[in-house]
């Protein structure tokens, strides 16, 4: 078990999502822009490339100050490859619905992992 102080610096909630999702989460108070002008969020629109999403996701996973990464389920689908490979405890990645893409349990990787476990 990790010592109690191990995760004390992990306090931020990062987010990758469409405009409404990010606006909503920023209103809820998650927004952080550090002294290097690095935001803990990315707005994904029609001009955002898969490479940009992957790069931002990877950079978030490497930061030591992020506890959770929230990502729209439909955006997660675009980087499913690197998401499936990701298995670190922290930051914890959670896929979330968007305004135009409601939560789809059939695409929930949490449920898929449980099925995999019970299928053995």
């Amino acid at each position: 078990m990790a010592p109690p102080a191990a995760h004390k610096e992990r306090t931020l909630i990062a987010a990758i999502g469409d405009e409404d999702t990010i606006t909503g989460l920023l209103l809820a108070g998650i927004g952080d822009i550090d002294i290097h002008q690095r935001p803990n969020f990315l707005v994904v629109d029609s001009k955002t490339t898969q490479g940009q999403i992957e790069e931002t996701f990877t950079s978030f996973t490497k930061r030591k100050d992020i506890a959770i990464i929230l990502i729209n389920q439909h955006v997660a689908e675009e980087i499913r490859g690197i998401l499936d490979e990701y298995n670190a405890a922290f930051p914890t990645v959670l896929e979330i619905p968007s305004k135009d893409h409601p939560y789809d349990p059939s695409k929930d990787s949490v449920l898929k992992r449980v099925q995999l476990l019970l299928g053995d």
Partner: protein
Amino acid sequence: MPDTGAQLTDTKLLQHFATLAQYQHTRERNSAALKQAFFVLAQARRSAGYSRISPDQYSGHAQPIATVNINAMEPGSSGSTMTVARRNEDSAGVDPLLWFGMLVPPTLREAQSGFVEALDGLVALAQMKRELELQAETITKLTQENSIKD
């Protein structure tokens, strides 16, 4: 003599099912809360003008009001718990509501409340996901140990 390996696995499996049920139930409630918050946000954007509530208004400086505390659980158990921490208005920085102007439609304030509540649910879901992962690791390990004994 009871097979304690199999019994322990069964106990862990039951615990796993219970956490899974809790996860699914929280997901349903949270998805409904988010749907409502998105709806109210759309109303606010229509009311104020779409261009007035958009990423163009996001501040270039931000300090989080909502963060996470990761605490080690009691000695003897594994894992940790994540909970939302919210700075109170006195010590908090600028309320992000103000990024969108001094006079915002009441629906934007209502949307903010909706997203604040939904965020609590999302952090709870992240915590449950973590618990499910740890439980799965334990079950896999126990299953492997049991099959070695057979």
